């Protein structure tokens, strides 16, 4: 019974994952991805990893809401009224994706997988807690510090200007002559869509 449910959820996760790149609206893509994550979380709950499963569902529900906001901010195709197909190197990507899936699938099928399920009486959440705050505490703390660094990095990257000037001040090369334009190759125009903006100079 549980096995059948797990298999159904696996199929659903893969199908919703596929729908992410096939729907016409980015919001629908976001919710499709969220459904995929939720099915993986449900698989966790069914396969005796309730903490991981529930944490996945909570985290991904919030994360996909944030992603939805970004989708609205950067959306090309509001409401999915037009067909949306914004791809490049499409054939190469299909080949790479199929090869990756087939290669990993072949590895799974040719391996003799061990069978050693979690014993029924195991208190998995308590085990995880003791592991996190016991032998693996350093790893757990490292993840915490990494997340702190991420928060700082995200603020630094996305802030418009700091107290001491532009956020990207240190990342621009100095001018060749004092006060002159910065050295090196210039970013192409402000619009970002001018691909053939030629360099000046060399006259």
């Amino acid at each position, binding site marked *: 019974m549980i096995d059948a449910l797990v*298999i159904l959820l*696996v*199929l659903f*996760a893969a199908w919703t*994952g596929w729908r*992410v*790149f096939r729907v016409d609206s*980015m919001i629908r893509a*976001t919710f499709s*991805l969220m459904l*995929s*994550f939720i099915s*993986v979380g449900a*698989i*966790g709950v069914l*396969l*005796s*990893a309730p903490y991981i499963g529930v*944490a*996945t569902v909570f*985290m991904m529900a919030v*994360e996909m809401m*944030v*992603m939805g906001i970004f989708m609205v901010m*950067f959306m090309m195709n509001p409401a999915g009224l037009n067909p949306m197909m*914004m*791809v*490049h190197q499409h054939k*190469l*990507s299909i080949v*790479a*994706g*199929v090869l*990756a899936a*087939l*290669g*990993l699938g072949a590895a*799974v*099928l040719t391996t003799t*997988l061990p069978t050693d399920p*979690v*014993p029924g009486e195991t208190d*998995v959440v308590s085990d*995880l807690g003791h*592991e*996190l705050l016991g032998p*693996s505490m350093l790893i*757990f703390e490292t*993840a915490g510090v990494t*997340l702190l660094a*991420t928060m700082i*990095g*995200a*603020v630094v*990257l*996305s802030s418009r200007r700091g107290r001491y000037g532009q956020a*990207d001040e240190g990342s621009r090369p100095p001018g060749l002559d004092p006060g002159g334009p910065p050295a090196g*190759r210039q*970013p192409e125009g402000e619009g*970002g869509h001018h691909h053939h903006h030629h360099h000046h100079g060399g006259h």
Partner: protein
Amino acid sequence: MTLTIVLLGAAALIGIGLYGALSQQSFVMLMMGLELMLNGALLAIIGLWSLALGGMPEGQLLAIIVMAVMAVEMSIGFALIVAVYRKRQADMTEALGTLKG
């Protein structure tokens, strides 16, 4: 049997995610491909831990690390998208010529 199917599903998710990350032009959609690959990794970890490790708690720890990686990828990715958009008004990968090799 269940483990095989779970792992095959994880392989499919990773394949779809790789396709999306390579093919999508919009930065936000590209990140969804990355997320999908991490989703596949998470599925594989959950399945292997539950059905093949006999309840070793370290397996769950690995799943938590993957979730931390998801959070890092997501927030730094969106910060980069916002920074690039501020600087270049670009929301498509093609618009970033200066990173071209």
